[in-house]
């Protein structure tokens, strides 16, 4: 196929383009290939696995969700499955999707060259990024996202500093604190704005046993230092999270690590025109989507943290659903309903209990919004070029 432009550019075609090679994207690509689809998996990094590659802790859940296996090993296993799978996934690493055209074409950049790719279906599994927190001097070098600290020490074996103040006692804050200890770095304290620790008590107990104090109902007021972080001022907060005067104290640290949650990376979905909805429980703006992970643009699917920030195990199951749904819309397969139902059951189990409470509330909001929304006729709204 040729573009309209005068210069002849040959359009690469594929049945399903998966954007993002983390747990969700890998799972989606694997399922779609299993169903006989031609799949192109794109990731802007040089490696597959997304954020799994720095997760040295063992996963919870059942054996279906790789319980007891470390994230780094799950990444290797999923990438290995791609190689040994029944079909061939065409892998495009070091490749960035720059944008989406109304006719369904993706603009893709690799080695500083830009080219169009025309997929029949798109699965967006772009993940999430660390949230910033508002405090004085929060832009000083030495204020790092928890994910960045993990990358630095678990991927490259470089310590972020000598003494760290961790902000946030959710699972990420707790796990990264423990990983800092493993890397030989001192953790001065963990500060948490809420009245209680958000993460699993197993993790909290582990860091507390190691002598790290966890200050609940506390926040950070400012980072101190000229060119880099040299300290942090923390204080107590009241039940409305407002600082209590007179409770300020300074802690000498050279790193402030932010583990205050993640927000979905939805630029591509938003630019493509998928309807977005603000759901704080899921980390911010998320695309509206149904239980088959189909967005409001019927040929675009979403999976993993881009659909709402949850756990990697959930991302993998959502990836499976997106892969099956996208492939199912191209190939007829009698097993689809059964496969999707099994995945939904898995998700239900993963989101059960207290820790899934927030996700469930967020997803319920999404569901209600979807219900209210009147669907436009699918084929009219796509505006898709037919290959």
């Amino acid at each position: 196929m040729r573009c309209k432009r005068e210069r002849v550019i040959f359009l690469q075609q594929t049945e399903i383009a998966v954007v993002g090679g983390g747990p969700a994207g890998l799972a989606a690509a694997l399922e779609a290939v299993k169903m006989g689809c031609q799949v192109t998996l794109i990731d802007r990094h040089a490696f597959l696995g997304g954020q799994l590659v720095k997760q040295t802790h063992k996963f919870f859940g059942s054996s279906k969700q790789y319980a007891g296996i470390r994230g780094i090993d799950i990444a290797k296993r999923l990438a290995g499955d791609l190689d040994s799978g029944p079909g061939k996934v065409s892998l495009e690493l070091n490749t960035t999707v720059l944008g989406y055209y109304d006719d369904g074409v993706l603009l893709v950049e690799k080695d500083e060259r830009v080219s169009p790719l025309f997929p029949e279906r798109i699965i967006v599994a772009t993940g999430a990024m660390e949230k910033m927190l508002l405090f004085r001097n929060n832009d000083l070098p030495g204020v790092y996202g928890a994910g960045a600290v993990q990358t630095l020490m678990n991927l490259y074996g470089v310590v972020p500093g000598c003494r760290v103040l961790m902000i946030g006692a959710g699972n990420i804050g707790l796990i990264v604190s423990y990983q800092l200890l493993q890397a030989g770095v001192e953790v001065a304290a963990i500060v948490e704005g809420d009245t209680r620790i958000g993460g699993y008590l197993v993790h909290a107990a582990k860091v507390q046993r190691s002598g790290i104090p966890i200050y609940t109902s506390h926040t950070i007021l400012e980072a101190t230092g000229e060119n880099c972080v040299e300290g942090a001022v923390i204080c107590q907060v009241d039940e409305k999270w407002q600082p209590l005067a007179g409770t300020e104290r300074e802690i000498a640290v050279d790193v402030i690590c932010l583990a205050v949650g993640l927000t979905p990376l939805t630029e591509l979905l938003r630019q493509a025109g998928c309807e977005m909805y603000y759901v704080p429980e899921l980390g911010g703006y998320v695309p509206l989507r149904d239980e088959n992970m189909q967005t409001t643009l019927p040929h675009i699917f979403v999976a993993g943290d881009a659909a709402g920030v949850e756990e990697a195990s959930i991302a993998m199951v959502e990836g499976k659903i997106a892969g099956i749904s996208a492939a199912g819309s191209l190939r007829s397969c009698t097993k689809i309903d059964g496969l999707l139902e099994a995945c939904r059951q898995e998700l239900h189990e993963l989101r059960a209990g207290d820790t899934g409470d927030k996700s469930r509330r967020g997803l319920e909001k999404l569901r209600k919004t979807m219900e209210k929304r009147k669907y436009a006729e699918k084929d009219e709204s796509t505006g898709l070029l037919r290959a």
Partner: protein
Amino acid sequence: MRVIQHPILHFQRGREIKFTFNGRELTGYEGETIAAALHASGVRALGHSPRLNRPRGFFCATGNCSSCLMKVNGIANVRVCITPLQEGAVVEVQKGKGDILATD
């Protein structure tokens, strides 16, 4: 500073690579990013904000936030947190928003 001992991870570092930072010769390892190599050598301030001239380091280390833009081999606005270190790389603190036509 580098991790010396780790209970779970064993770091298989690539060959040693020489590069310069603002003219100063430093070493890193093949397979790591420029930001990781700089950080291991104690360099955390990677640039300045263009308007208020505030020091800047990396934040996300996944190529998202663009807080780590530097000049590498004469090319401005390189995200050093995801750019692999290469032998002889000339890494400099960038002034302003960077030029695209400059060849020096």
